């Protein structure tokens, strides 16, 4: 009987997506410039917006400048952690440089690099970009599918302020 339950659990595991109320998936990823590695647990005690993006994704191009501005507004208590899933890290670097030129300042948040696409697979990302608002305890409070407009960022700010 135990074996059957185990097999059923394994079969159903392919459907498992991360939902609101679930614990954020732990990871151990290098930064895009490979200078440092980060774990999800490193951000405990802070509200985190985990954003999965790629340089080839048009929605990511649209929302990234908004994330630059958003992080600039929050000095403490809130961190944006973006994860690039490009196959080529130089494409991600070029992408960020173009956004830096557009907004006029350096990337104000941590950018991690996940060439194996482990995070989107674990999170079960149904769109690119996908973002996850994670509270101080490491619990997912919102799953954002697709890109965020400036108006939606305003709504997001209210959520961040509530969680801070």
């Amino acid at each position, binding site marked *: 009987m135990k074996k*059957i339950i185990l*097999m059923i659990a394994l*079969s159903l595991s392919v459907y498992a997506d991360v939902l609101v109320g679930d614990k954020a998936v732990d990871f151990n990823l290098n930064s895009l410039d490979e200078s440092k590695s980060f774990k999800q647990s490193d951000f405990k005690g802070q509200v985190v917006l985990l954003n999965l993006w*790629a340089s*080839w994704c048009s929605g990511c191009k649209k929302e990234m400048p908004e994330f630059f501005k958003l992080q600039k507004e929050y000095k403490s208590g809130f961190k944006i952690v973006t994860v690039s899933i490009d*196959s080529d890290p130089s494409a991600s670097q070029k992408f960020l440089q173009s956004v830096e030129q557009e907004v006029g300042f350096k990337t104000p948040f941590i950018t991690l690099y996940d060439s194996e696409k482990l995070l989107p*697979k674990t999170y079960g*990302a149904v769109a690119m970009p996908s973002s996850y608002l994670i509270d101080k305890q490491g619990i997912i409070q919102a799953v954002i599918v697709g890109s965020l407009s400036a108006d939606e960022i305003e709504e997001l700010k209210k959520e961040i302020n509530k969680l801070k």
Partner: protein
Amino acid sequence: MYYIAFIIALLLLSGCTDKLVRVMPYEKEHFADPKMSLSPLEERAEHEGHIFLIRESSAGGDSSFQGGCGCR
């Protein structure tokens, strides 16, 4: 025996989930490449579509500005 058949059926059916048979959004890097576009010259394709719709007297003139009259 039934249990084994049940488990095998379950495992086989789990292989039909859309997560395993569908190209997931994060796997579309190569599909997003401009080379994969059916018409490599986007502006030209838009222009040709516009002319086609005018020739066929279709209303709206596709997505081009001031559709129908042929002016842009």
